[in-house]
């Protein structure tokens, strides 16, 4: 059991795989890695590599004018794959707008995800299919949703004992960043979740920057220190260490699921790229700093570990590059082929039930558009 951190320091960071690829044992969290065999380790690398390749392709698509915007995640693959792979299918995930890696672990189609960024959908995928909610662009607005969803789970599982909850119950993961950690809705969400003992794992990817503003402007103390103020356990984990993130998130989900209430995880990571494709990190951070973080790259350290322990050969990486390129080509092809839904669809989706103003404006719109068709016919 991890104590609620009061004064987190660098030494409190849970780490299992060091930046140079050495695996250390951990007295608390090794228990959560018992089933991790060689195949799973290779799988984590594959997940991270595919996610990075997808991110690269989407960035290119934006640069080529095919997406309105893209939100790169390079550097945060371990935090996302490790936490995503810790969830069960019946857990519900509330992402921010950068959780492309978590989406992969939930089997959300990468192609579908581009519909939002291509400007042809307000959501993009069916949240009910994979229990992976739509991206939320309004910072932290998803946070109280997570608490409420968790409160609803408690109502459903009312009367279940701890054992049954742990086995059959489900939990919620609320993703957020160091930027949205300061929003009022993050605070209110944590208050509600703690007051009602909701099964919510708050997973913060502290990537050090809220667009351009460094973490020290968001908080004077490590983010995990806030947990104690709400009365929940907090764990600070090396967010670039996929094994540590997996273990810590599994522990947190077990805690939440079995009815013991929410948990705060601070995954310390670094956004290697820009905030979005509209951003320019050279204006606010030194390349020296980026150089310091580069060797901590989550893919590099797992690759080192896999190679040094002879769990992979060159052919593994060669094949993975081919697979990733094929995936990227498919995503690109799909994105370009998505039909643009007519504005009529937008009218239909405003309300669930019939609405006279919508009907009136839709009728006007159709008549107006039909006028152009008639005019075109007349010219022929």
């Amino acid at each position, binding site marked *: 059991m991890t104590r609620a951190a009061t004064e987190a320091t660098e030494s409190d960071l849970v780490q299992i795989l060091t930046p140079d690829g050495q695996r250390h044992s951990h007295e608390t969290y090794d228990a959560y890695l018992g089933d991790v065999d060689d195949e799973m380790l290779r799988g984590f690398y594959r997940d991270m590599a595919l996610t990075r390749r997808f991110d690269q392709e989407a960035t290119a698509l934006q640069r080529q004018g095919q997406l309105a915007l893209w939100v790169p995640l390079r550097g945060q693959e371990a935090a996302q794959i490790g936490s995503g792979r810790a969830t069960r299918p019946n857990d519900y995930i509330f992402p921010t707008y950068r959780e492309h890696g978590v989406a992969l672990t939930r089997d959300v189609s990468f192609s579908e995800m581009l519909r939002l960024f291509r400007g042809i*959908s*307000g*959501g993009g995928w069916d*949240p009910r299919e994979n229990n992976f909610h739509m991206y*939320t662009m309004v910072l932290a607005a998803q946070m109280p949703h997570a608490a*409420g969803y968790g409160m*609803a789970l408690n109502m459903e599982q009312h009367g279940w004992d701890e054992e049954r909850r742990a086995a059959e119950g489900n939990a919620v993961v609320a993703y957020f960043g160091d930027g949205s950690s300061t929003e009022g*809705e993050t605070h209110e969400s944590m208050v*509600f979740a703690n007051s009602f003992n909701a099964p919510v794992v708050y997973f913060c990817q502290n990537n050090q920057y809220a667009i351009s503003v460094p973490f020290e402007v968001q908080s004077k103390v490590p983010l995990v220190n806030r947990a104690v103020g709400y009365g929940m356990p907090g764990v600070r984990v090396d967010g670039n260490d996929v094994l540590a993130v997996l273990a810590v998130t599994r522990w947190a989900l077990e805690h939440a699921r079995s009815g013991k209430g929410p948990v705060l995880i601070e995954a310390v990571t670094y956004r290697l790229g820009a905030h979005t494709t509209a951003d320019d990190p050279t204006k606010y951070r030194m390349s020296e700093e980026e150089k310091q973080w580069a060797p901590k790259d989550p893919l590099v350290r797992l690759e080192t570990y896999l190679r040094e322990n002879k769990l992979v050969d060159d052919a593994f990486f060669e094949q993975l590059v081919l697979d990733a390129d094929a995936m990227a080509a498919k995503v690109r092809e799909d994105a370009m082929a998505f039909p643009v839904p007519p504005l009529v669809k937008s009218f239909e989706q405003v309300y669930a039930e019939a609405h*006279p103003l919508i009907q009136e404006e839709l009728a006007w719109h159709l008549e107006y558009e039909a006028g152009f068709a008639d005019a075109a016919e007349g010219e022929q």
Partner: protein
Amino acid sequence: MTTTMTLAKAITSGLDKILDTNDKSLLMGEDIGRLGGVYRVTDGLIDKHGSHRVIDSPLGEAGIVGTAVGMALRGYSPIVEIQFDGFVFPAFNQITTQLAKMHARSEGRLTAPVVIRIPYGGGIGSIEHHSESPEALFAHTAGLRIITPSNAHDAYWMIQQAAACQDPVIVFEPKRRYWLKGEVDTETPALDAFKAQVVRPGTDATIVAYGPLVPIALAAADAALEDGRNIEVIDLRSISPIDFDTITESVQKTGRLIVTHEAPTFGGIGGEIAARITERAFLSLEAPVLRVGGFHMPYPISKVESQYLPDIDKLLEALDRSFAY
């Protein structure tokens, strides 16, 4: 069966019936449990339905509406209370960017059947932020429905109709009419919550009012009768959508229209009605559509609020202007 009850008690009874009939429904808000709400609208419901269905929430309007959205995503139908009109704004983001858009953003896959109850309006001699009418700020947001009952019978049924609706509904409750008694027929449902109702037929001019001003409009119509003017009064009931058909039909008959609300005239619901009716019934109009509403100022100090609020005299003055045109 018909029972006499106050508007507040009619809402209590309506909520009780919702909790009885829909096991996915629940109430949440500040002080709504043990205390029964600051206006006692939820009085007694926690004893009957339990604290898991009548939830005393922490103080936090964004948290209240935001968690309600999360519950709705899991299949629940929360009915939340915002304690006072002027305190809804911390939840404005959740209501306008999240709740209102959930159905559209998800391409119709997700619904968010959340009901938000807000006591609103002035005339109760209170201090600041307790007397406001912010309905226009929400009416501008597509995806929301907004209703406001003016009498006990409507209150009993409209809260139930709101709860049954798959869209999010804001119910503005006219707090100065909470103690207004009326006959409630608990067997015959009221008119569709999203329709306006002619509450007094007339021939010479139409007054559209809603919520707390409906009794005022009716009293003004009575007074106008002394001048030989037979005024039709429409209780708007639904602020979004607005039942323009009922208003149009009335204006085609009377030729004159006054719209009244406590909210400031500028940018208010009256302006929207005036524009639409001008488009729909231009040739029937004998005079411009006139508005009787609040001034463009923060809701005034209570000692002078009577000069700010629309009243019988202001409505009669507007009728005079309309007839003199």
